[in-house]
């Protein structure tokens, strides 16, 4: 008897939280207290990883097959659909796999990010965030996120900064316990920034480009620092490694599938159903998913390999810190090799990864030096909430991974409860674009005319959805 214990990184976001996964019949999470990003601490999602890592089997059109057969069939369909195939990976896998994937997907690569709509000189700032120690040392921190729901491990860094005297301002729809000052998103013009300010926001496939530009402009004009947190295990790696690749945005991908110019979609460790509408996915001739865990998408081909925690490879976290996964598995690379028609050597790819980020060895305790050169003048229009009532979707790991959570309710304030004469323990009717749902509610210090949810209800149109509400 000897336990199988893997030292790994939580895939819930790009924070870089170290942990152990123990295979003891069922999977168990164990705390890796020496991990520099999180000191072994895990959020609600990290504690749910045994649920996320649901086993997956290789399949062709619903029939179980070997990984090799699935990869070979995928290669055939991709080859037959040359010119109408797209390659999608949000960055939920190793940098080595992502490099191999880029080589296959040169024709239509998508990390989900709309880089083309953003100035090139902002890429580095958008891709690599600031070290967490800089956040702890900041004098004034401005949040454009809900740290508790979206990136919970940042909370202790914020508390550490507060202990040292930092002031925290939150530009958010709900009063946050950690904030000393609250500013409504519609009143963002009241935000007073200085060169001592540090803005924390996030950047992901559903980010509104104008909003991203406006935050960059706020920081630029005040000489403040800005750091973008990201939602996938290796978002930073994916964005850094794909900086020279020709990419298309998620919106373009959805358009092309709807128009019929993209008929085959190959997803690497990314569940498309979390971001692409099901009616769009149903138009594909071939949906091919290569993954280490079960997904909710109905794929024509599933190429199943080891889960992330058993893989060998490198992840790069929000800070740009290179982290080695503790597994030995390279089945994912083998499958990509079958599709490419040429074997990918791990060591060669690993050397390329190190070269790309300018390091000679992967050392999780040392953050490589990145050229975070300033970007030029930029303008962006703040998207104000003009809806009479808006449903605010707070994207969090459970939404990105379509994993069930104890959050099937909306938050609203007491004024709204009284105005609608809602009953304690009752429900709220929410209508949007002809769709209607009924949800439990929780009274919280939310702004007037705003509902907040951390769950995907299926009626959303982006982060802000105009809705009508009634008892």
């Amino acid at each position, binding site marked *: 008897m*000897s336990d199988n*214990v893997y030292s790994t990184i939580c895939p819930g976001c790009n924070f870089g939280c170290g942990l152990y996964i123990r295979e003891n019949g069922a999977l168990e999470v164990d705390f890796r207290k*020496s991990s520099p990003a999180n000191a*072994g601490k895990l959020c609600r999602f990290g504690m749910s990883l045994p649920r996320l890592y649901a086993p997956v089997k290789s399949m062709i059109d619903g029939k179980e097959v070997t990984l090799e057969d699935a990869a070979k069939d995928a290669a055939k369909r991709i080859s037959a659909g040359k010119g109408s195939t797209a390659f999608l990976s949000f960055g939920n896998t190793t940098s080595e796999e992502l490099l191999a994937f880029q080589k296959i997907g040169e024709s239509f690569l998508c990390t989900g990010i709309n880089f083309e709509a953003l100035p090139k000189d902002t890429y580095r700032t958008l891709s690599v965030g600031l070290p967490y120690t800089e956040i702890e040392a900041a004098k004034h921190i401005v949040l454009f996120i809900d740290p508790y729901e979206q990136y*919970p491990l940042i909370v202790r860094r914020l508390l550490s900064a507060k202990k040292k005297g930092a002031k925290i301002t939150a530009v958010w729809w709900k009063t946050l316990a950690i904030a000393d000052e609250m500013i409504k998103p519609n009143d963002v013009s009241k935000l007073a920034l200085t060169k001592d300010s540090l803005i924390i926001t996030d950047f992901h496939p559903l980010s509104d480009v104008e909003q991203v530009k406006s935050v960059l402009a706020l920081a630029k004009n005040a000489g403040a620092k800005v750091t973008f947190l990201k939602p996938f295990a290796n978002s930073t790696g994916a964005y850094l490694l794909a900086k020279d690749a020709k990419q298309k945005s998620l919106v373009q991908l959805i358009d092309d599938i709807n128009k019929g110019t993209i008929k085959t979609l190959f997803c690497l460790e990314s569940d498309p159903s979390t971001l692409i509408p099901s009616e769009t996915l149903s138009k594909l001739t071939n949906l091919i998913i290569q993954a280490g865990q079960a997904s909710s998408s109905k794929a024509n081909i599933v190429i199943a390999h080891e889960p992330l925690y058993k893989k060998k490879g490198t992840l790069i976290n929000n800070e740009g810190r290179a982290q080695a996964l503790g597994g030995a598995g390279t089945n994912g690379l083998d499958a990509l090799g079958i599709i490419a028609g040429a074997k990918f050597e791990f060591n060669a790819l690993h050397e390329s990864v190190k070269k790309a980020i300018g390091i000679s060895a992967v050392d999780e305790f040392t953050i490589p030096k990145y050229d975070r050169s300033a970007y030029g003048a930029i303008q962006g229009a703040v998207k104000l909430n003009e809806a009479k009532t808006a449903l605010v979707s707070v994207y969090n790991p459970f939404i990105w991974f379509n994993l069930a959570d*104890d959050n*099937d309710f909306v938050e609203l304030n007491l004024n709204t409860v009284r105005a609608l004469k809602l009953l304690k323990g009752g429900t709220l009717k929410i209508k949007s674009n002809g769709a209607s749902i009924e949800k439990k509610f929780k009274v919280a210090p939310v702004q007037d005319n705003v509902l907040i949810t951390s769950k995907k209800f299926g009626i959303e149109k982006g982060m802000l959805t105009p809705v009508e509400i009634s008892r």
Partner: protein
Amino acid sequence: MQKGEMYVGWSTKEDVRKRGGSGGLVTSMLAAALEKKLVDAVVVLKKINEFEAVPIITSDVNEVLNSAGSLHSVPSHFAKLIANRNLKVALPAKGCDVRGIIEQGKRNAINLDNTFIVGLNCGGSMHPVVTREMLEVMYKIKPEDVHGEEIEKGKLIFETKDGKEHAITIDELEEKGFGRRESCRYCTIKVPNNSDIACGNWGVTGDLVGKATFVEINSEKGAKLLQNAVDAGYVQVQKPDEKGVAMRAKIKGVMEDLGKKWKGKVFVPIENGRLEYFRKELEHCIDCGACKTVCPTCSCGEVSKCTEYHSRGDAYKMSMYHLVRFLHLADACIGCGQCSDVCPVDIPLTRLYRRFANPVQEQLKYEPGMDMRKPPYFEVKLNE
């Protein structure tokens, strides 16, 4: 050999003596238990580096022998690791490990008859991230250059790869916010006499200092474990001298007194606003549940009162989850510090649980994990 006897002993294997702390007796005793089939498995810390080791359950004697060495910056806990696994197992255990194992035994999650607990004297452990920072700030050395560590005469000593020793008093380190975890500072279980056999370097004298372990047999199982190791040729023992026995008792007394003083410093009475104090401390909770998962005395599993009475949809000013846990742990908390270690928003949970547990356990004269006495709350009978 029998309960109550004391010995000084060491491993007969030279490589284990070299790598192991204090003569490698514990490592060899565990390996012998496995080799001679006294147990089916042993828990060891698989060392990654000076600041990281992962606990594993193994049946490989070589893996046990290779695990030798003390690690003060690995604050692991073994009770939950062996719970509900129906193992015949031997394991090294700090005082808090022993207490957790005994409490799991009371809750039928561990069969104590099949569990051989090798207690380790413990002056406290440190958080690895804090230790790395402490090395850079206080010792001015790079963590990567550390080769070994030792606690001696109130000093924390690090040996670097160049052979040099770097020593600072624990008092000075703790004044600056480094050193031991808070719960270790006020812990008073320094020699784990609640284990089957208590082992440590306190009481080793003369030429044997640093080369042998002082052991005290606390149970028949403990006697069996040591006798097995001697019979298997893994361990040699001799009777301790009187000076050593007295020295050990003195160190134990001093350490326990120090723990009591710390308890006074940490648990300053809350004069006013007790409710607000707890509400404020808990306001950043993100409902991760890690404190329950890691708690070595909790054996409720998925369905438990603290989670059943709690929903994220509730709008209470203080979470029912924590309120239930405060009550549930009042007679069960062993103050191990694991909940504080794993809290993602740095809530000092152990301190909060102890604020309830200290008065309850003092009033009921009950120390969980120290013996097989039934938890007082289990004995409450209604309608009598």
